[in-house]
């Protein structure tokens, strides 16, 4: 803007109403949250864990101080959409939305404990549609505000860590204990810990070998481009096969192996169990690892490679000190895809006796117990989100260097 145009521009700003709609996302999110609270149940009260409950709205279920605070906070977030945009405003919106997430959780816990106090011991108070929509809308409002503030990976990580710590503190303080999800958790605490560990072990046991096999394959494919066609055809084919089918197809040779060599069975390798699950997860992980590694290494600027050669680097030095570091952002992006995919596929692995969080999902489906399904599905979703978020941040930081 030229200095001469500053005056008319200032006049235009003065004439424009200070409060007009600057952000159309927040009002939509507000409308979704408000509609869910007014129409749907915030929590559901059921006489026992196997029947679905009667929905109860937020204002009927929770203490008026908490529900009132939620309404005020919601309106405050809405108001930020009408204020002139700026970094401070967006950070304030992110903070208010984070508070809204925490208050929503606390309201659910408080509603459950006050409803539970007057109900028989078998009664269950589960989370209703209104709760999930409000939580989702508040979470999206945080993301929207951080995007508008132009927050970098570091700031996003800090917000996520602070929010996670606050939620953990709320749960640790026992504020959520009356919810049926927490009660399912408390009756299965040891099983849950074992399943969570098993889930992580399955993922690690698959991703580790996939990287160890995939990187050399990718290097070979970069040096001999003729190999890429057939290699990717095979890997793509594997990736296409649905997980449960691949698990099923691996059961046959593995059970035959275990029958032929009893020593293998003693090691825990057999037709069902973790062995076919891990092999299948490795096979699925190969395509993203190889594809991203090839793209990363092939994408290194040839001038840089020439310069490094000119400096007298050997092939090995070139790989470790030039090519791999420069390909790191894409390698991390591949790792992210693989981790998220493996965490999701490991849920299905419970069906062939591999354990993991899927056991709660499928046991819950079998018993028609929604909270048990949630006890397996929710941590799996959170694990996937955490892996996605962490590796994405790492890749962004690596790309910056």
């Amino acid at each position, binding site marked *: 803007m030229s200095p001469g145009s500053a005056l008319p521009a200032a006049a235009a700003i003065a004439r424009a109403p200070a409060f007009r709609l600057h952000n159309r996302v927040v009002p939509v999110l507000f409308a979704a949250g408000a509609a869910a609270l007014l129409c749907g149940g915030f929590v559901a009260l059921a006489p026992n864990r196997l029947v679905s409950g009667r929905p109860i709205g937020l204002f009927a279920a929770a203490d008026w101080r908490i529900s009132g605070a939620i309404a005020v906070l919601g309106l405050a977030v809405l108001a930020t959409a009408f204020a002139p945009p700026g970094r401070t405003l967006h950070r304030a919106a992110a903070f208010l939305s984070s508070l809204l997430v925490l208050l929503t959780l606390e309201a659910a816990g408080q509603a459950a404990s006050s409803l539970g106090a007057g109900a028989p011991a078998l009664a269950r108070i589960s989370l209703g549609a209104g709760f999930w929509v409000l939580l989702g809308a508040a979470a999206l409002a945080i993301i929207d505000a951080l995007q508008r503030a132009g927050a970098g990976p570091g700031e996003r990580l800090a917000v996520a860590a602070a929010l996670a710590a606050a939620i953990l503190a709320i749960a640790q303080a026992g504020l959520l204990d009356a919810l049926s999800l927490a009660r399912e958790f408390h009756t299965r605490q040891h099983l849950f810990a074992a399943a969570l560990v098993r889930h992580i072990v399955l993922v690690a046991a698959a991703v580790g070998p996939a990287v160890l096999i995939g990187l050399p394959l990718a290097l070979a494919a970069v040096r001999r481009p003729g190999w890429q066609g057939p290699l990717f055809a095979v890997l793509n084919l594997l990736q296409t096969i649905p997980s449960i089918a691949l698990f099923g197809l691996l059961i046959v040779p593995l059970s035959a192996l275990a029958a032929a060599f009893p020593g293998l069975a003693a090691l825990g390798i057999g037709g069902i169990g973790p062995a076919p699950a891990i092999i299948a997860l490795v096979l699925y992980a190969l395509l993203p690892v190889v594809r991203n590694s090839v793209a990363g290494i092939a994408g290194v600027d040839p001038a840089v490679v020439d310069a490094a050669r000119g400096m007298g680097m050997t092939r090995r030095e070139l790989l470790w000190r030039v090519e791999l570091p420069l390909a790191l952002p894409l390698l991390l992006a591949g790792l992210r895809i693989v981790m998220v995919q493996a965490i999701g596929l490991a849920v299905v692995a419970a069906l062939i006796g591999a354990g993991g969080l899927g056991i709660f999902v499928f046991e819950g489906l079998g018993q028609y117990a929604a909270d048990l399904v949630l006890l397996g599905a929710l941590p799996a979703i959170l694990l996937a989100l955490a892996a*996605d978020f962490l590796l994405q941040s790492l890749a962004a930081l690596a790309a910056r260097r």
Partner: protein
Amino acid sequence: MRVRDALASPVLWVGVLFVALLVGMPELRPVFHWAFPAVKEPVFERTSFVALWLSHAGMVAAASLAASIIGVGLAVFATRPAGRDFRPIVNVLATIGQTFPPAAVLALAVPAIGFGPEPTIVALFLYGLLPVIENALAGLDGVPPAVRDAAEGMGLSPWQMLRDVELPLAMPAILAGVRVSVTIAIGTATIGSTVGALTLGTPIFDGLAGNKLPFVIQGAVLVALFAILTDMLFARLDRRLRALPETPFGR
């Protein structure tokens, strides 16, 4: 020459193998008897494989068709002037949503909807939306500004611009999204058997529950062939689409 090309195509052979196994699995009874002497009735017969496949493919087709239409619609909305404000959040929703395990989405649809094919179709639809949105956004973004300017200079209305320029140019990307969406839908529908949908996964789960390995093999082979065949057909469609002369204003 054309006949020879067709005969050399792997699509044809995978297709023939798939249909032959779908129809003729009961004829393989002696083979399964020989391989698994301990299993009394070694071929899954509760429902015919053709009926299982029709139900499976029908669910995938219905959910993927709806997801493709609505997903492209959302991507178009988010790239118009009126919807541009929603562009980043739609993108985030599509990427975050895809980190949710498909099996978890399916399982969570059951308490909300009940057992049967419905939760499977809803989960397939919701999950299928995400890759379509993501790829359609990328495709619409990839339209070169110069092409847009030229079209505008020719006096195309916004609607003509969308129909004749943007969507045709974005079509390969949209098709890639639909392909991912259908591949995931075929796999997720297989797990739908655990929540009461009739699919080619049904023999797999019956076999796992009843310790009948032949059932597992029959279901798994057919599901795998179905998925591979579908992917091959998409690859063929993609090649055909890209082979079109690249004119900025469609065909």
